[in-house]
C-alpha cells in the first residue's frame, strides 16, 4: 500500500465530501485528487523523479495538502518545513536534502532569497501566488486535468523526510517509508476509533508529524479536516470548533490551557466533541479535571511520540483518571520496553531509555549514518532494527509508561524540540559573551521555557533584551531565551566543562528555599 492511495480511494468513495476546510474555502476528496494530479504532472514536467525531494514551506492551507499528495503521486519524497524557519536554516535543509523543488508563499520571499544562497542551484521554486509571471500554483491548478505517469513505487520507498533538531546542532532529516506511514495512519486511527463521520480540527503546524498525520489519517479514514493557521486567536478557533461540529481536536497543553478558559462559556456548542489528543508535554491534572467538569463526555488521549517513529503509545482514556501522568501503553503493532545504561531490561519502577520496535520506525536519518547507527540498533531478530528514543521512562507494575526526562539535555518548548547546544552556539557568536549555558525551566504557558545563563566579557554591556534580540536574529522564535540570568561564572566539572545539571540543581534548590 502506498500513502497516496488513501486519497485516491477516498476520492472514489467519498467524491464530493469535503476533505479539507480552511477558512471560507473547502475542497472535496475528488477535487483534491484532481488538483494533486495536476501538480504531480507539473512536478514530472520539471523533471522531478522517483525519490527526489520536494520541500514545502506553507502555513496550514489547502495548498499544503495538495502539495503533499502531488509529491507522493509524482513518486517524490515530501519535505515539510515549518513556516517560521529562518532563512539560514531553510537554506541548510534545502541543501542537505538536495531538494529539487520548493513550494512557498510569497510572504516568505526574503527568507527564500537568503536560503537560495545555499540551496541547490537547479532547484525549482513554485510560489502559491505571484503577480510577475513566475511559476505559481494557481496557474498550475488551472491546467486541464491529466494523470501523472506511474513511477512504480513500492512501499519501501520514502514518503516523508521531516527535519528535526538534533541534540548537537544542525537539524537531521527523518526518513519515513510509505510502509511505515501507512502502518502509522492505520494504528493511530484504530486506537482513536476514527470514523468517516469525524470532523477533526487541526491547528498544529503540518510541518510536524503530529499535524501532518491529521491529514494522512483523514484521507485514510475519509474524515474531514478543518485547518486553522495558528492558535494566535483562540476565540476564533473555538468559533470554528462550534461552527463545524468538530469531533476531534489534537493539541498540546498550551492550546488546551487557553481553550479551557474559553470553553465554559460555549460548552453547549461543543457537545459533538468526542475526543481530544495531547502530546509534546503531559496534560496537567488540573486540565483533565477541567475537561471532566466542562465537557464530561470528551475522551482524552494522552500520547507520546517522536518524529523518528511518529507515535509510540497512548493512555486508554477510560483509565486516564487513575494515572493522569501516564502515556499508557504501546499503540497497535508496536512494542516498547525500557533498558538501563547496560542494555538490560528494567523492572517496574526502574527508569531507563525507552526502546521501540515496530513498523512505525524511520528508515534512518538522511545521509547521517553515524546518527542513524546511534538511534537504530540491532534487535532480537537478525537484521531487525530497534529505535533508541533518547527519552527516559519508567513503567509501573501494570506496564503503563511514565516519561521522566531525556538522556541528553533536549527539552520541548511550545511543542518544539530545543537543543541547549543550538542556543548556546548562537550565544557564543556574540563577541560580548564569554560563557553561556542553556537549560529548560518549567513554564505555565510554554511547557518548558528556554533559560540562558550568561557570563559577559569584561566591560561588555548587554541587557536581556539585547541578548534576546541577538538570538532572535539567528534562531527560530521557540529557541530564543525567554529568561536570561547574568552570572559571574558558570559551574564547571573537574575537567572544566560547563555543567547544565548543576544549573538545574541550583534552580531546584532555590525554588525549594522560597
Amino acid at each position, binding site marked *: 500500500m502506498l500513502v497516496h492511495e488513501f486519497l485516491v480511494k477516498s476520492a472514489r468513495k467519498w467524491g464530493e465530501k469535503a476533505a479539507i476546510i480552511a477558512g471560507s474555502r473547502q475542497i472535496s476528496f475528488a477535487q483534491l485528487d484532481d488538483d494533486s494530479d495536476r501538480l504531480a504532472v507539473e512536478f514530472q514536467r520539471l523533471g522531478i523523479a522517483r525519490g527526489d525531494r520536494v520541500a514545502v514551506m506553507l502555513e496550514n492551507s489547502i495548498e499544503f495538502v495538495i502539495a503533499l499528495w502531488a509529491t507522493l503521486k509524482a513518486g517524490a519524497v515530501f519535505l515539510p518545513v515549518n513556516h517560521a524557519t529562518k532563512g539560514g536554516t531553510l537554506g541548510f535543509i534545502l541543501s542537505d536534502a538536495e531538494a529539487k523543488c520548493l513550494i512557498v508563499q510569497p510572504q516568505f520571499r526574503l527568507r527564500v532569497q537568503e536560503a537560495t544562497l545555499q540551496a541547490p542551484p537547479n532547484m525549482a521554486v513554485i510560489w502559491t501566488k505571484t503577480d510577475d509571471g513566475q511559476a505559481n500554483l494557481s496557474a498550475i491548478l488551472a491546467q486541464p486535468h491529466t494523470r501523472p505517469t506511474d513511477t512504480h513505487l513500492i512501499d519501501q520507498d520514502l514518503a516523508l523526510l521531516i527535519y528535526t533538531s538534533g541534540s548537537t546542532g544542525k537539524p537531521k532529516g527523518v526518513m519515513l517509508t510509505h510502509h511505515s506511514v501507512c502502518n502509522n495512519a492505520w494504528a493511530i486511527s484504530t486506537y482513536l476509533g476514527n470514523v468517516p463521520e469525524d470532523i477533526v480540527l487541526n491547528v498544529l503546524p503540518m510541518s510536524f508529524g503530529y499535524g501532518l498525520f491529521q491529514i494522512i489519517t483523514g484521507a485514510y479514514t475519509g474524515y474531514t479536516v478543518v485547518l486553522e493557521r495558528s*492558535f494566535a486567536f483562540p*476565540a*476564533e478557533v473555538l468559533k470554528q470548533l462550534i461552527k463545524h461540529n468538530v469531533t476531534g481536536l489534537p493539541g498540546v497543553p498550551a492550546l488546551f490551557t487557553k481553550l479551557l478558559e474559553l470553553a465554559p462559556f460555549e460548552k453547549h456548542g461543543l457537545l459533538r466533541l468526542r475526543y481530544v489528543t495531547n502530546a509534546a508535554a503531559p496534560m496537567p491534572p488540573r486540565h483533565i479535571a477541567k475537561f471532566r467538569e466542562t465537557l464530561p463526555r470528551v475522551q482524552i488521549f494522552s500520547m507520546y511520540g517522536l518524529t523518528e517513529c511518529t507515535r509510540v503509545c497512548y493512555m486508554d482514556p477510560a483509565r486516564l483518571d487513575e494515572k493522569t501522568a501516564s502515556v499508557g501503553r504501546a499503540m497497535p503493532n508496536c512494542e516498547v520496553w525500557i533498558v538501563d545504561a547496560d542494555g538490560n531490561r528494567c523492572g517496574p519502577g526502574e527508569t531507563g531509555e525507552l526502546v521501540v520496535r515496530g513498523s512505525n520506525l524511520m528508515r534512518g536519518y538522511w545521509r547521517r549514518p553515524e546518527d542513524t547507527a546511534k538511534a537504530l540498533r540491532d534487535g532480537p531478530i537478525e537484521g531487525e532494527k530497534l529505535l533508541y528514543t533518547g527519552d527516559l521512562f519508567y513503567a509501573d507494575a501494570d506496564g503503563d509508561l511514565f516519561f521522566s526526562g531525556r538522556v541528553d539535555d533536549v527539552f520541548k518548548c511550545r511543542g518544539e524540540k530545543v537543543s541547549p547546544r543550538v542556543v548556546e552556539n548562537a550565544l557564543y557568536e556574540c563577541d560580548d559573551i564569554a560563557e553561556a549555558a542553556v537549560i529548560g525551566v518549567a513554564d505555565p504557558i510554554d511547557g518548558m521555557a528556554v533559560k540562558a545563563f550568561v557570563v559577559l566579557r569584561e566591560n561588555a554591556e548587554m541587557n536581556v533584551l539585547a541578548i534576546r534580540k541577538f538570538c532572535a536574529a539567528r534562531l527560530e*522564535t521557540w529557541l530564543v531565551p525567554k529568561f536570561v540570568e547574568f552570572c559571574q561564572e558558570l559551574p564547571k566539572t573537574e575537567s572544566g566543562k560547563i555543567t547544565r545539571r548543576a544549573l538545574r540543581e541550583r534552580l531546584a534548590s532555590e525554588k525549594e528555599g522560597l
Partner: protein
Amino acid sequence: MDTDAPIQANHPEHVIRAFIVENLFLNTEAEFGDDDSLLEVGALDSTAAMELVAFIEDTFNIKIEDHEITADNLDSINKICAFLESKTA
C-alpha cells in the same frame, strides 16, 4: 520633559510597530505594511499574540476581553489602530 507621551497618543501605529519589531522578533529587515497580516509575516504565534495583547492593554490603558482577541481586531497594525479607536471612543 516627557516627549514620548504626545507621540504615543497621536501615532499609536508607531508605538505598535516598534513593539512588534523589537519584541515579537520579526526579522527587522523585512518590510511589512500597516495592512499586512501579522500572522502571515510571521510576527504572531500564540505566545506573541498574548504578549501583544498585554502590551496594548498596558500602553493604552484598556482591557481586551478574550472574545476580542481576534484576527479582525489584531492581525495588522491598521486593524489594531481601528480596534483601539473603537475601544477608546
